[in-house]
């Protein structure tokens, strides 16, 4: 093995070279004249904000889109990649952010899908079983080949995706935001696997928006901003601050300025809250928490550990058992008295995790959306009819005060950017002067400029004496905003910490369900 060979030698052949790649969708230019060189046997990071064009670029490389201009060289040879099969043939494997697995197939079936040997399944499955065992031994990727995907954890599912690529003898592995669904421990394991692969001579491209990961694992890094490649540098010669500035194009505050909280009376008190989903799986297994006026309780955790269910049951659209007291009064948890409307009447406002699916009706115009959820308010409706004039006036007002761009109330919600959509939702929910604000993933898919604005709004609301429940999978965001942090794992709260008295490592252990280790 040549793993001892230094990787920064100038003579390493290029695994991938992109020359002048451009791609636009209608009037939107997603990639503009992008060129990169990635050396064989290195880990190359691509970092950039949401919407910077990283994923479009990788989709071009994997044959999902065709570039309008430019050329792709694989191993020094010009290569056309019209579809995924061509990418696979060129030795490219891709691990998508949202896994492309058939949920009710076994690991083995997923691995051979599209790469079968011959028309009958049996020989293919036998061969794959052998090969899989060997790969698992080589790269510590222990996955039961006969397990059904939906019964595996996300970390394991991701390994299946990597195995799929390796089974197809990929030399170049692209991973798109691979750690978004992983605990810090799982992410470490992934990085060990990736280093092992690199040392075997594979080339790895890691797409992420997390500076820490870039610094930790990559050999070189390219920064993208607004569809353009702003720089490519060896990781060792740069710093997180420099990368952040390259990403955004100006100096960024990575911290939120806020005064210490002055907690008041208890607003929300949750005791032994349980939620069972349609598949009879218990998603919340006895949640206890308390939030006082004037404080932000941050819920940290890897997504899928019950945070969504917590927001849904508090927001009134999932059934649960246990007790929720709002300002000292019990809330009905089932039946007709329990829906999002009655929750709002009790002073609970909710900025949902997925604004495009839940928080907005994407085909409704902005002025129709500002009444959404409050459309029975006397402000917006009298008798059977809606008061369109009042809704429009209210929308004008909110757009001005929350700096929504473009400030056009007649534009449909889907035509605003993520950040501006979030401002519309936030304006609607905050303006109702709620006692409690539930807010999920406040800055997901939001550009950095809007992130600062949204964070300021959340803190300002707290300072007005409101109780805030913040759910985010971004640990940095939780650390920056919360006055107290509760960590959720597998439907339970593993522990509560004060942001000043904990660190990412401890929270990471709690997120992985290791309560004892963090005690």
């Amino acid at each position: 093995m040549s793993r001892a060979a230094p990787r920064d030698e100038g003579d390493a052949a290029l695994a991938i070279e992109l020359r002048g790649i451009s791609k636009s969708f209608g009037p939107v230019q997603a990639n503009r004249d992008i060129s990169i060189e990635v050396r064989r046997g290195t880990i190359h990071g691509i970092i950039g904000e949401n919407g910077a064009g990283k994923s479009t670029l990788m989709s071009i490389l994997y044959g999902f889109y065709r570039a309008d201009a430019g050329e792709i060289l694989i191993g020094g040879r010009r290569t056309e990649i019209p579809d995924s099969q061509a990418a696979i043939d060129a030795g490219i494997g891709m691990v998508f952010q949202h896994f492309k697995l058939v949920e009710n197939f076994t690991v083995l079936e997923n691995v051979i899908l599209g790469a079968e040997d011959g028309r009958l399944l049996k020989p293919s499955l036998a061969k794959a079983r052998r090969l899989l065992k060997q790969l698992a031994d080589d790269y510590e990727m222990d996955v039961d080949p006969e397990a059904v995907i939906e019964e595996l954890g996300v970390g394991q599912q991701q390994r299946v995706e990597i195995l799929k690529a390796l089974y197809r003898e990929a030399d170049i592995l692209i991973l798109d935001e691979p750690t978004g669904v992983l605990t810090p421990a799982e992410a470490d394991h992934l990085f060990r696997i990736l280093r092992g692969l690199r040392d075997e001579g594979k080339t790895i491209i890691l797409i992420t928006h997390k500076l820490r990961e870039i610094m930790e694992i990559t050999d070189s890094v390219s920064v993208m901003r607004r569809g353009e490649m702003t720089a490519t540098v060896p990781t060792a010669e740069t710093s997180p601050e420099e990368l952040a500035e390259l990403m955004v194009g100006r100096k960024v505050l990575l911290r939120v300025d806020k005064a210490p909280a002055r907690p008041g009376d208890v607003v929300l008190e949750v005791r032994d809250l349980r939620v069972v989903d349609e598949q009879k799986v218990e998603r919340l297994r006895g949640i206890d928490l308390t939030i006082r006026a004037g404080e932000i309780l941050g819920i940290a955790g890897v997504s899928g550990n019950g945070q969504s269910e917590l927001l849904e049951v508090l927001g009134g659209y999932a059934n649960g058992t246990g007790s929720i007291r709002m300002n000292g009064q019990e809330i009905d948890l089932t039946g007709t008295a329990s829906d999002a409307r009655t929750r709002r009447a009790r002073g609970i406002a909710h900025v949902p995790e997925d604004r495009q699916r839940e928080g907005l009706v994407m085909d409704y115009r902005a002025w129709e959306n500002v009444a959404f959820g409050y459309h029975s308010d006397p402000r917006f409706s009298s008798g059977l009819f809606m008061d369109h004039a009042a809704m429009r006036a209210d929308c004008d007002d909110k757009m001005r005060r929350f700096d929504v761009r473009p400030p056009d109330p007649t534009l449909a919600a889907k035509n605003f950017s993520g950040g501006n959509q979030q401002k519309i939702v936030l304006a609607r929910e905050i303006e109702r002067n709620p006692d409690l604000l539930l807010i999920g993933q406040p800055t997901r898919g939001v550009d950095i400029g809007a992130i600062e604005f949204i964070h300021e709004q959340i803190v300002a609301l707290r300072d007005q004496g409101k109780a805030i429940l913040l759910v985010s999978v971004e640990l940095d965001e939780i650390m920056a905003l919360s006055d107290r942090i509760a960590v959720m794992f597998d439907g339970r709260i593993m522990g509560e910490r004060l942001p000043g008295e904990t660190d990412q490592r401890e929270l990471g252990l709690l997120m992985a369900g290791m309560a004892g280790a963090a005690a």
Partner: protein
Amino acid sequence: MDFLGLLQILDSTLRLATPLLFACLAGLFSERAGIFDIGLEGKMLASAFLSAAAASYTGNVWLGCLAGIGASLMLAAIHGVASITFRGNQLISGVAINFLASGLTVVVGEAWFGLGGRTPQLMGAARFQEIDLPFAREIADVPLLGPIYANLLSGHSALVYIGLLCVPLTWWVLYRTRFGLRLRAVGENPAAVDTAGVSVVGLRYAAVMICGLLTGLAGAYLATALSAGFVKEMSAGRGFIALAALIFAKWRPWYALGATLLFGLLEALGNRFQTIEVFDITVPTQFMQALPYILTVVILAGFVGRAIPPRAGGEPYIKER
């Protein structure tokens, strides 16, 4: 009811279940690949018409059958173009196909034959003949087994046996071949198939065309085996009943056989007993005739077991990263 009477009912169950079975397996291929097809009814009708017309013209039932399959494949291709290539609404496309078949069969039939939408009565080789299985006559006198073999199993048209053979064949294709694996995958998660370098469009077209082939057989059977010619609207909702049977069968081939036999039995009972007296109340004919439709609703209501449909069913596939 005596033993022979029972055999007669089971015999006609088998006959009546056959078109449902073909249609149900047809729907199975299509829906397993993620394409809803409420146009089974129309395809069946079109095939019934063209098979009867061609059989009456050529005097050869097999040519008729081929023509019927051709008609069904044409409509299947339209459904494919609408729902796969142009990512249209699969339900609406199916509805359009049903109306198209209802209209065209009568318009063209009237223009060709001038019999008010019927085709001429089919006779002789223009119809599927009953096939006697080997030794049916010889062992007919053996008690119990003899009559079952001779009266129930023997003496059906070739398509009945082909239909029954299609069940294990479908199972084998679905679970033992590469094509079957990919087909099932594309109905569950087309993105997985696409990123694995297999054409989603190709697979779905293949499934839709197999669906057309099998529905063609269902229609040909209706007009050239079960009846002796085409009659306006002769499919009578069988395409929809087959869909209900498919749901009841949880999209599985062997269950599909059971489900369609059940509906066949219901129809056989309805035909055999025009009126039934229950506790001195006479159940009207119309109720017996509506029974398969009512049962369909009951099954869809999930009072008889529930199943998870293919997850990507009905959704056009759009590449997303």
